[in-house]
């Protein structure tokens, strides 16, 4: 008997909003605006991240006319607070983002260490709480620390975004045990944000039950970013399907898949002696 569900593998909800994709994409470091657009079109992300900087200060070729390119795609924007080291900076950037992008969504990035770009987990929780009080839909970039993640949920975060590894490293899940325990312990939607390098990394975390992944560098710096965007989209879907299908239990002893009974020539060698 097959079980029926109303939820298709790609349906995903955050803060009561349903998304038709489980992949989120960053928009930085692509070789050209055209390649960015093609990557977004093929991956069909739930949201795309964007940031705010002083006018004319961004050296990337894509920054010129970035908004005109992005707004025409009609993909929801997830503004980030990248580069913020103090809660006060986060609050200012969040409010400016709300006005510029006309959205309450905010990817909370509060950096505590410049070498690893590790979030400031001490200040992260009160900052998330303040943002929520001011009406933002907060997606906090955090580590895999279970207690910090629990505290983020306690103050009202309806989803969290633990890293797999430091931003831009492409190392894949650095701490598989902690990430799996985190998934088992917390019930809110969780998006793996940062550190994924290959589609197999994305598939792995999706098999563990993570709800989505957020990528940038792994796609943008691939030799063929558009094909890599497609590969990640397929891997995310495969991982989610595998999680929902329920993998088999692992065994130590081999067990033949093909039935043994009726095997031709069974024991004939011994009987002909």
């Amino acid at each position: 008997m097959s079980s029926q569900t109303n939820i298709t593998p790609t349906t995903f909800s955050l803060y009561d909003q349903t998304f038709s994709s489980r992949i989120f994409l960053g928009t930085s470091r692509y070789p050209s605006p055209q390649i960015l657009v093609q990557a977004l079109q093929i991956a069909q992300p739930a949201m795309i991240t964007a940031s705010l900087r002083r006018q004319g200060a961004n050296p990337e070729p894509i920054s010129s006319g970035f908004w005109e390119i992005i707004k025409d795609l009609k993909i929801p924007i997830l503004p980030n607070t990248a580069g913020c080291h103090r809660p006060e900076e986060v609050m200012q950037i969040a409010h400016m983002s709300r006005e510029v992008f006309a959205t309450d969504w905010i990817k909370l990035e509060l950096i505590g260490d410049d070498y690893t770009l590790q979030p400031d987990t001490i200040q992260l929780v009160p900052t998330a709480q303040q943002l929520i009080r001011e009406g933002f839909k907060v997606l906090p970039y955090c580590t895999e620390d279970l207690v910090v993640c629990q505290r983020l949920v306690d103050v009202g975060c309806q989803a969290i975004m633990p890293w797999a590894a430091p931003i831009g490293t492409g190392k894949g899940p650095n701490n598989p045990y902690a990430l799996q325990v985190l998934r088992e312990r917390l019930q809110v939607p969780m998006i793996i944000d940062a550190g994924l390098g290959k589609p197999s990394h994305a598939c792995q975390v999706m098999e563990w039950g993570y709800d989505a992944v957020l990528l940038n560098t792994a796609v943008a710096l691939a030799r063929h970013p558009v094909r890599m965007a497609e590969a990640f989209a397929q891997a995310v879907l495969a991982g989610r399907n595998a999680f929902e299908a329920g993998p088999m239990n692992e065994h130590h002893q081999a067990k033949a898949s093909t039935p043994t009974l009726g095997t031709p020539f069974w024991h004939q060698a011994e009987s002909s002696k």
Partner: protein
Amino acid sequence: MQILINQVATELSTLSNAITLSEILIQVNPTPPFAIAKNGVFIPKKDYPQTAIIDQDQLEIISPVTGG
């Protein structure tokens, strides 16, 4: 009157000691969309006409860029 706009010293033509943010934007003409902070504090668009800018104030005019 001189103010800092995105850390660049900018001379403004005004006869008084104060000028509103709305008046400054007519002179500076930034490319939309943008948001503004005065001396590190976000100023909502609706407050531009009432926001006084004086000599040596610092404005940040920021716009969308790529992000991860």
